[in-house]
């Protein structure tokens, strides 16, 4: 059980690093797919089947399609040679910011005192349990989601419009 988790975590980390360091954006996108699959399997390990299914259907499916279209839209030519040092300032700033965030998270996690909770029921995280709380306790956020999606649709239409004209 533990060994499976560490294998998946290593896959997720390595593929995540590969997403960042790849020069070719399409290869980055493919490593991102691998990362999504590893995360989905970790969700399964954590007994969250519904989230795992969403991870595959929405992220590895729809969002990857969107990413690929954006990559094609950006009209990326062959990566130019010697471009690695052009954005050195950005790289230094970005990596120091990321390090600071990670350090903060690690610090907070180790400082955190978690009170012992009651053990989870075996069906915790199953689609049925998620559905029960989603459609009763979290009814308002659920209905708000539809408004959010409506905004996204209208926004996409308007953005594309202004670009064409």
């Amino acid at each position, binding site marked *: 059980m533990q060994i499976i988790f560490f294998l998946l975590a290593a896959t997720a980390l390595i593929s995540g690093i590969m997403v960042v360091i790849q020069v070719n954006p399409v290869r980055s996108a493919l490593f991102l797919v691998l990362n999504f699959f590893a995360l989905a399997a970790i969700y399964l390990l954590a007994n969250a089947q519904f989230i795992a299914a969403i991870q595959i259907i929405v992220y590895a499916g729809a969002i990857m399609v969107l990413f690929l279209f954006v990559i094609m839209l950006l009209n990326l030519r062959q990566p130019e040679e010697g471009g690695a040092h052009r954005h050195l300032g950005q790289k230094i700033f970005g990596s120091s910011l990321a390090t600071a965030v990670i350090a903060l998270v690690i610090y907070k996690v180790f400082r955190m005192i978690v009170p012992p909770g009651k053990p989870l029921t075996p069906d915790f995280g199953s689609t049925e349990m998620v559905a029960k709380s989603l459609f009763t306790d979290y009814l308002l956020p659920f209905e708000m989601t539809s408004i959010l999606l*409506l905004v996204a649709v209208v926004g996409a239409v308007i953005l594309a419009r202004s670009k064409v004209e």
Partner: protein
Amino acid sequence: MLIDYLPILVYFVIALGVAVGMVALSEAVGKKTHSTVKDLPYECGMVPVGDARSRYSVKFFVIAMFFLVFDIEAIFLYPWAVVFKQLGLFGLIEMAIFIIVLAVGLAYVWGKGALQWE
């Protein structure tokens, strides 16, 4: 239990094996001939025009965006279907509101002609 997902893992392994196997086998067994014409990129039998990295229309992005939005809508139907009988009429009404709001979005997109390719 995690062991329940073993068939899915087996399925993944077989799918990966078929994909890798086809490329590897054709590389190992296939006969390779090179000539100027044969090494051209394949473009439906005609002489290639330009390179493959031409700029795509923004319409693809818009269609992908719509797909994403309505995919998320469909995602919410799965857990709803699982507990539909327990929720009864209440569940039907809340899902009806959800779908009507998104149907307004669909009507907007349709009315604006964004689904037209032209």
